[in-house]
């Protein structure tokens, strides 16, 4: 049974658990004994969304619903898509996005909740040849919420897709991206940031399948966890037989700033072709004491030095965001997240 059906039918026994290899660090079945009632329609006033300043128009899916975005060939569009959960119910939302040949889309997506909801958002994105999409995802989930987002991205040759996930965590939060990469000079960038405090959890999972020759994938995820928070990164790059000259690079780096925080990572390579260059790097640790010492010796107070170094650590991912306006919104969000 898939997750959407399990939520719709309120079948808690069919939710993914730590016994499912892909969910080993994001156990839903162990957490949710009885699935919540379906969410009620919401008619009240919504607070402003994080990207209101950038988009003229936005689609809001409150407690479920469906959306379709069609970007015609050779046009440019900015779409804001808000997945909102109000109350403590469960629901499934979905969006289908098609981007025509040589069109450009800036997709600004947010996940917002205000209670112990159980929400799933399914996205399907299809990019035609030459289409270029930048997807920025910001989360503003409640600490009791369970929120899962599953995106399926299909690229055409010569298309370009870049994504930055910016996650603040929830009771359980998972941002999953699956990309079918046809090669043929299509370019993919999958980045992520997570800043977690309290007892929050956030999981960034990606599976990139290279099916054709000459594909490029770069991935960089960085996380900072404090208190008893838990960050999860799972990245799998699959290079199918014959997908020669694939170039794939993945990096995941996390800072643990307290004794009881946790980071779990599984960067995977699954390679069936020989003419490839694939690599991943993964580091987990505390702030570099030497750098801290250097900063303090220059007269910067310890707290400030820590904040500065942490901001610089995450800043590398922020700097890679292509759209300037979105980059500054994310930068402000990160600065806020590190101050709190």
């Amino acid at each position, binding site marked *: 049974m898939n997750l959407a059906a399990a939520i719709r039918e309120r079948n808690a026994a069919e939710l993914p658990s730590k016994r499912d*290899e892909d969910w080993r660090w994001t156990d839903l079945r162990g957490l949710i004994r009885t699935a919540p009632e379906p969410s009620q329609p919401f008619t009240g006033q919504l607070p402003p969304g994080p990207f209101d300043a950038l988009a003229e128009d936005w689609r809001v899916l409150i407690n479920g619903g469906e959306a379709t975005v069609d970007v015609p060939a050779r046009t440019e569009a900015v779409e804001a898509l808000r997945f909102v959960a109000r109350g403590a119910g469960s629901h499934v939302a979905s969006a289908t996005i098609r981007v025509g040949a040589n069109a450009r889309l800036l997709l600004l997506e947010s996940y917002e909740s205000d209670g112990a909801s159980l929400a799933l958002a399914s996205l399907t994105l299809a990019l035609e040849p030459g289409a270029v999409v930048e997807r920025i995802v910001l989360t503003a989930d409640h600490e009791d919420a369970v929120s899962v987002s599953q995106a399926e991205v299909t690229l055409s040759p010569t298309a370009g897709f870049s994504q930055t996930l910016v996650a603040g965590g929830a009771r359980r939060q998972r941002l999953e991206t699956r990309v079918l990469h046809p090669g043929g000079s299509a370019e993919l960038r999958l980045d992520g940031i997570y800043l977690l405090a309290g007892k929050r959890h956030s999981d960034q999972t990606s599976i990139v399948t290279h099916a054709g020759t000459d594909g490029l994938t770069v991935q960089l995820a960085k996380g900072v966890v404090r208190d008893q928070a838990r960050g999860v990164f799972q990245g799998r790059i699959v290079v199918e*037989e*014959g997908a020669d000259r694939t170039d794939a690079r993945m990096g995941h780096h*996390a800072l*643990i*700033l*307290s*004794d*009881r*925080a*946790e*980071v*779990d*990572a*599984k*960067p*995977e*390579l*699954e*390679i*069936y*072709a*020989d*003419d*490839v*260059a*694939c*690599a*991943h*790097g*993964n*580091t*987990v*640790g*505390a702030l570099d004491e030497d750098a801290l010492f250097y900063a303090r010796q220059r007269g910067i107070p310890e707290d400030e030095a820590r904040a500065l170094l942490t901001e610089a650590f995450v800043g590398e991912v922020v700097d890679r965001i292509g759209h300037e306006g979105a980059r500054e919104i994310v930068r402000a969000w990160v600065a806020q997240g590190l101050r709190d």
Partner: protein
Amino acid sequence: MAAVRQTVEHVQALEKYQHGFSTDIEQDFAPKGLNADIVRFISAKKDEPEWMLQWRLEAFERWLAMDEPSWAKVNFPRIDYQDSYYYAAPRAKAGPKSLDEVDPDILETYKKLGIPLREQEVLAGVEGAPRYAVDAVFDSVSVVTTFKKELAQVGVIFCSMSEAIREHPELVKQYLGSVVPVSDNYFACLNAAVFSDGSFVYVPPGVRCPMELSTYFRINAENSGQFERTLIIADKGAYVSYLEGCTAPMRDENQLHAAVVELVVLDDAEIKYSTVQNWYPGDPETGKGGIYNFVTKRADCRGDRSKVSWTQVETGSAITWKYPSCVLRGEGSSGEFYSIAITNGRQQADTGTKMIHLGANTRSRIISKGISAGKSSNTYRGLVSAHPKAKGARNFTQCDSLLIGKRCAAHTVPYIEARNGQAKFEHEATTTRLSEDQLFYVMQRGLSQEEAVQLLVNGFVKDVLQELPMEFAVEAQKLVAISLEGSVG
């Protein structure tokens, strides 16, 4: 260059699998199949005390309730556990007292394999040549252990497991199953029920074992499985270096090898465990036959500042499922894992390590080099974890995979679990093929393609070969060359 020339000569001189012969000797078998009576039969055959039989029967009960694991990236038809012999032993004349009483055919077998069972043969080389003591396990039993007397003088116990159960029950009772519990996993549990022999080593406090110890495993009988169990205890401040080698005849049916190795390391002690695994890999074209190698190896660094180093060269077996692990419990203890895993033909390997940091200031280092050629599949799977108490834990992991050919596969599946803010983990992995530029450069200097590949591969695995004891390093280097023969062009 001498090493390369030697490697090339070696390849030319040998067939693909040089240990594929079988020895025709009279053997005792247990009836085919597996049930509680077979467990009793094995226990009775080995004259075991009642507590040992109970231990086995309990393990068998638990095994019946377990399911075969399926998470590894290997594919094979379901194993029929009833279609195998669980005990095969050379028919002995009531326990040979000396080497002269051992069946000459067996001695001949080991001679062919190049394993010195006669102490004078070890000594017969150049003066000052390194010596090593051997425990030779032939199918289900240990046939001979050399240098026992000399080792006993310094207090080192080196004998077969069956002998240890008889002679040193207190040590066996204390440590057996304390590192790999009976029901740890499916294959370890099966092993606990039907294990037949293996080596037992105890190094007393403060003793540095005067020579390398080694066990040589040979599967000979048809349709049989080998289930050996090795237990090594390094008491406080002790040191021992242990080598393990394995081969099997070429047969069309698959044979099961499910071993358990337990290492116990107390304060300031060190164990260095090296393996050259060269079980028959099956037919490279059809994939028929070969050994299923499902092994559980684990070291428990119980003492402070204790150290374990696993070095493995895996070239054989149709299927390898093996994760030598270190439980770093003692403060400041350290674990190392150096591995070369080569798959060719239709071999499948899923191998790696687990470094479990429990104590403060524990350190671990993983260097894994995987090479896949032919139509094989090679997976590195490893876990590095730091528990909340493992303050100051440090890990460095480097996993490199090399692909030779269009039809092979290489996977890297590392798991990293950091549960405290003062642990520092670094992991790097790469997957590439042999560099065209380097090949071109070397061939332009006059080397043939085969030689060039061997030279580059030797360079690729050099970091690990350096960690092997000298006599093994030479053998391993040759093995690397032989395993990759025919994979180029």
